[in-house]
């Protein structure tokens, strides 16, 4: 009998050692616990470009907001309803966290990449210089991203953002964020060393070419500076001039673009326009009517021709845009050109022609940028036409038209530059909307949902999520900017 009790005791005793493997059990072996910062950086670069170029109405609705495109059947977004689909929530999520399918979230990935790279102890001075370059490059893309967030929402979480110990971060003043972004660019510029290496091939935009990043830094600085020109002309001027003298993009080769390889990593425009088989979007009459009036050669790259004849047996091909905000039968209007919806169409963050338009504007504002407004204006239009595949002759002929020529085109410099920048930024929804907000041209159409031109959104309302999860800070940010409304202007949008 005693032996049996002994067995019992031994049995219980044996259990004590059973927790040995517990830590091993609770390890998620299908996912890495340690990774190189470079892999996070590559992913973040890709996600940033994805988010910038996607026309997914849930994630990036700016091609509709800026009236480049309109919708066919379901016209909520073209009528500036961004609440039904909680689009602001999705934008926040894309920038900060990523969505359920584990895409996006580039700000957190940049932050983690910088943390991991910062922890490295490079064995050689050359590696150390590369490390410094890497951290500076990450900074530039952080600045780029936060400028977008400010341009969309106004005040946003910034100084306390990306810190999981602060689950309800405060919102920072938008103008203050802009100032800080400039400080960060200058710091990065100070650290970038073109003679040293950086990410190499892990940098899927510039292949680790630091000299390109220096140009990117100055061009981004130019973009931020020019955006400030109405609200803070002094700072705008010094920033713009410093940027230009520091060396901005000098050709389309400098463009910050991601070359999509296709397949899993295809341009998101292809996914949304071709792959999903839906006919949700057509180019809007806002941009097509404008370009038709100027006989713009870029139409054949932007759109397709459609038969607009109402006569039996007569074909009349033309570029015809869907009526902005109305229900538009898909077959009746021009479609998005297959060039743009190709799986390997490059995704652009910042381009040469964009820089030239900023320089034209700077010149118009009498900033010293080494050229006349007309020179930059002509160069910008030419660069745009060429980059889309047009010829120098087409560009020259186009600029020679009185309706386009800087001297004779209608209106103020704001109208001239605004109109041409708007056309050139066709595939860059957010920038197109920003140029319209800053320069107030071209004149947009009013969708059926609004009765007054002033109701066209000047900003996006904050995410619903923030109203519930970050209530206090949401409330103070709302009152600080003058109300969480689509009609509230971003701080730089004075006019």
């Amino acid at each position, binding site marked *: 009998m005693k032996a049996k009790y002994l067995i019992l005791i031994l049995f219980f005793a044996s259990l004590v050692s059973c927790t040995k493997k*517990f830590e*091993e059990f609770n390890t998620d072996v299908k*996912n890495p*616990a340690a990774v190189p910062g470079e892999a996070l950086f590559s*992913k973040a670069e890709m996600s940033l470009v994805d988010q910038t170029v996607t026309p997914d109405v849930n994630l990036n609705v700016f091609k509709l907001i800026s009236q480049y495109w309109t919708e066919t059947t379901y016209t909520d977004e073209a009528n500036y309803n961004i609440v039904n689909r909680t689009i602001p929530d999705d934008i926040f999520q894309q920038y900060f966290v990523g969505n*359920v*399918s584990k895409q996006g979230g580039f700000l957190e990935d940049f932050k983690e990449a910088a943390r991991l790279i910062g922890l490295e102890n490079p064995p050689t001075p050359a590696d150390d210089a590369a490390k410094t370059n890497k951290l500076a490059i990450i900074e530039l893309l952080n600045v780029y991203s936060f400028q977008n967030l400010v341009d969309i929402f106004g005040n946003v979480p910034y100084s306390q953002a990306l810190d999981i110990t602060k689950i309800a971060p405060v919102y920072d003043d938008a103008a203050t964020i802009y100032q800080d972004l400039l400080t960060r660019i200058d710091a990065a510029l100070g650290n970038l060393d073109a003679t040293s290496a950086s990410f190499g091939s892990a940098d899927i935009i510039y292949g680790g070419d630091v000299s390109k990043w220096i140009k990117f830094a100055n061009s981004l600085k130019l973009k931020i500076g020019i955006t400030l020109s109405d609200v803070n002309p002094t700072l705008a001027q010094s920033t713009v001039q410093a940027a230009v003298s520091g060396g901005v993009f000098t050709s389309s080769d400098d463009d910050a673009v991601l070359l999509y390889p296709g*397949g*899993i990593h295809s341009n998101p425009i292809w996914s949304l326009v071709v792959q999903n088989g839906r*006919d949700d979007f057509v180019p809007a009459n806002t941009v097509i009517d404008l370009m038709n009036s100027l006989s713009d050669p870029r139409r054949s790259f932007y759109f397709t021709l459609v038969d607009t004849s109402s006569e039996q047996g007569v074909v009349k091909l033309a570029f015809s845009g869907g009526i902005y905000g109305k229900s538009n039968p898909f077959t009746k209007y021009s479609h998005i050109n297959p060039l743009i919806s190709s799986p390997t169409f490059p995704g652009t963050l910042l381009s040469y022609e964009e820089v030239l338009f900023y320089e034209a504007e700077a010149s118009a504002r009498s900033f010293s940028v080494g050229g006349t407004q007309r020179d930059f204006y002509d160069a910008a239009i030419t660069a745009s036409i060429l980059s889309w595949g047009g010829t120098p002759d087409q560009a020259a002929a186009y600029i020679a038209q009185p309706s386009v020529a800087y001297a004779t085109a209608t209106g103020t410099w704001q109208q001239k530059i605004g109109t041409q920048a708007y056309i050139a930024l066709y595939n860059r929804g957010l920038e197109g909307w920003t140029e319209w907000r800053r320069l107030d041209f071209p004149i947009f159409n009013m969708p059926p949902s609004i009765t007054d031109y002033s109701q066209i959104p000047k900003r996006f309302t904050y995410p619903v999520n923030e109203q519930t999860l970050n209530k206090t800070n949401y409330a103070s940010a709302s009152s600080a900017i003058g109300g969480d409304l689509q009609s509230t202007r971003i701080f730089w949008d004075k006019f």
Partner: protein
Amino acid sequence: MTRQLILHILIKLVRMCDELKIKFMKKLLISLVLAVVACGSTLLAQTKVITGTVSSSVPGEGPVIGAAARLKGTSIGVLTDVNGKYSITVPQNSTTLEFSFVGMKTQEVEIAGRAVVDVVLETAIQGLQEVVVTALGISREKKSLGYATQSVSNDAVTSVKTDNFVNTLSGKLAGVDIKANGNMGGSTNIIIRGAKSLTGNNQALFVVDGVPIDNAITNNEGELTGRSGYDYGNTASDINPDDIESIDVLKGAAASALYGARAANGVIMITTKKGSYQPGKSVGVTLSSNVTFGVYDKSTFPKYQQSYGAGYGPFYSDGAHPGLEHYVDVNKDGVIDYTVPFYEDASFGEKFDPNLLVYQFDAFVPESPNYGKATPWVAGANGPGSFFQTAVSTTNSIDITGGSEKTTFRVGYTNLNQTGILPNSLLTKNSVTLNGTYNILKNLKVTAFANYINDTGKGRNQTGYNDNVMGSFRQWFEVNVDINMLKYLFNQTGQNVTWNRKTYNNPTPNYWDSPYWVRYKNYETDGRNRLIGYTQADYKVTDWFSLMGRVSVDEYSELQEERKAVGSVAGEFGVGRPTVTSGYSRLTRNYLETNADFMATFKKDITSNLNINGLLGSNVRRQKIDQVFESTNNGLSVPDVYALSNSVDPMAPPEELLSKIGLNGYFASVSLGYHNMLYLDGTYRVDQSSTLPKNSWTYQYPSVSGSFLFSELVKQNWLSLGKLRLNYAEVGNDAPFASVLDTYVPVAPFTGNPLVTVPNTKNNANLKPERTKSVEAGLEMNFFKNRLGFDLALYKSNTVDQILPVTVSYATGYAAKFVNAGEIQNKGVELKFTVTPLKFSGFQWDLTANWTRNRNEVVSLEQGIENLQLASLQGGVTINARVGEPYGTIQGTDYVFLNGQRVVGPDGYYLQSPTSDVVLGNINPKWKGGIQNVFSYKNVSLSFLIDAQKGGSIFSLDQYYGQATGIYPTTVFTNDLGNPVRNPVIGNPTDGYDPASGGVILKGVFADGTPNNIRVAANDYRLFGYYANPNSAFVYDASYVKLREVVLTYNFPKALIARASIAGASLSFVGSNLWILHKNLPYADPEASQSGGNIQGWQTGTLPAVRNYGFSLKVQF
């Protein structure tokens, strides 16, 4: 061994002698017996044989077959034969026999020198001696328990056969909220005493013979949140109801403290049927056969308006018929023809007119009888209702039991075949169970159990917003479409001939495939092979001390394959849910759980009035889930080849999960009984769980309970039972797998560069166990020999320090963070009431009623957080845990009110609240109840069950969109001016409206308080549905009253069947879900949802409810 055999033979011979009255022979034999006995030391001393008949107290039932007669306190026992007769050999000095039978009160009878002991067993209605199965499979006398349990017998789950026996428990148990969602083979929610976990599992634990059984819902995130996908059911549905002897429900934490954390949600304890030894009969065979037919319940499917056809409004052309397109000369006669705006999936188009000839979708398909023909513009002759077919379900089972003196065995086999109401759907289930016991030694018994299950599914119904035929029928449809034409054209062409083609000359589907294409080409298949088994040894060391050891395994492999044929509408599909037009995906899931249990029990009478029961045990559990989900990328290269290798682009990395969980539990329990009147129980458990950080992975929790049988004190004839009970318990709980350490998530490489990203949820290395604290009081009283009785329970449970991924501002870089935070409280009342109102000359009426009211409140979340979003669903509606509200609030936009009146904007449409976090309802019912009536008269019995839910809310995405697409009759009516509401609005508020104007003036006021005077048009999608109305307009009360079950049984008279060597036979008419007597949700079943789980209160494209009726035949040999 030999000795026992000899003894047995000798005893048999003695009995023969008795019968033959050969006295001298008998004497000789008895002396031989004594000699043999003397050789051994422990076996029978002098023996005697007792015979008798066991019969039922229920009139007409007669003898009880298979009742157990046992010598009290020993393992000596026999079963009664077909005539209810038994014969047992017992030691000469034996005093008490114990008679028991399932569903009847166990009775102890003093032998008092008799040789013949006849017994009449009474039906057990909460009888004093009722035995219930409690945690770990331990049987306890119900009177001694200080907590609520409720039992149902095999009948409750086998009278009406379904593919998921859990559904048949609906309405039969107090405190148990069962919600069958109506999907074919779908998952059923079973929640006991309210949801306790904010984000974790709230389903009850299923235990078979003491062995926990996995009850996973493997549906993916996209399915659970109503995007698209299939409901693959809950895996506890594998349990074969024919194997079930009885079910005991342990409701509170005290009842389940010994099981540990997993039982905090309550336990469904299943006791399987066992074999038995009947002298003179080696094998008993039962056959049962069941066939049921299912037809869809029309009250749960849309009615369609019959006046307007395809389109969103009168804007497709100019002229007399602006709702139709007028651009093409189809028949080349030089005149432009009318065509349908095919691409629109709505019915706000042109008014029907049989004299108007229109080229419809079938005019452009060469195989169509209407090819090249314009047809009258009328509502489709056969609406979507004609898509459904009659479901047929057959269940056949055989049950073989038998044994010898040392062994018992049972073999059960059941086959189920079920076609659904949708074309091309089939579920099959095969279950084989083997169960055996062997008394190796007189005090050592070994039990082995094995259950092999094979399930297959094909063509389950699609769920969710996308790619769901029901979604089209309920939300997006053209009522001019004739379903039978779609069927004809699919059969003729085998192609995706849809009503929703892009244009007259482009047959590509725009938003919706042909429903027949979807059913026959885009179907899923699935299968699961499962083995559940255990081996148990019971060793009785002494008469007061026993040891039990058990090793069990629950293992299955499952394959879910989904298809999207080339030529389908693009939809979310496969890994990462990209939108593609074709594809193939497969999920393989391997599950393994092993449990090793060891238990020592002792039982001692300290004095004659004070006894003690003790238990010391351990449980070692290991669980492993190995799951891979992979899919083709960007479509199928070769049509109709469903292979991963047929991917157009290289495959995206699969989603893999390898989860391992280990748990060691040690527990002790002591119970004291005093005078059979006062009982006190205490339990204590220590768990070690691998899912917690090392410094907190050991945690302890106690429970204490007591019961007081005051009827023993009062001793009144009218009071059969009076019992008060009280308990307090705590249960600790561990964390989900891998929520302690952070990892990264790899993404498909980009031109050779590895990509990784930070996951959305931040783990926490400082987690500690969560804890449920509960207190319960109960009163149980039976009167007048148990003809009337009730069982009342009051309980309160608080689950604190919950481990949950609390949602945080996205600006943190994460969507959620694991924390210990939050508290949910459940308070409730349960009442079970039984009465036999009538009982005379063969007639009896029994009534059982259950009523439950649970009040659930989210007491707190993480500090500073008022709301935890559980799911964000289509339509901008969220399901949430909000502080101060019940778990599962439905939130969205509401109307804007001014002095109680709805406010309209300057355009005359209702304004909507600026934010979408207004609480519009919650998923919890106010109360639930069921009433079961059983009428029996001689050989016939009739039972019916009415099941009701009061309250609870549900958001209908079907109405949200379906009203906007104009398919429902509510979008066609005569307005205040006496005109069809869809007529154009003529006039304006300033000059007044024409008497012929359509449209409506919405009831409400402008922001300044003046009454609305703007007439808004009702001839486009804006007025009725989602566009100009807040979410609250589509939140409905989920109350219902249902006639859940009807069973009419005829038992063939024994005299009639005995000649055919049949021991018993019955024929039943069975019906389930026959009639929804009351509901407030239009055109749908308020119980329906996309899946089981925590995300409820939201409905889209659900299958209609199915009314089942059929026959069941049962024969015993």
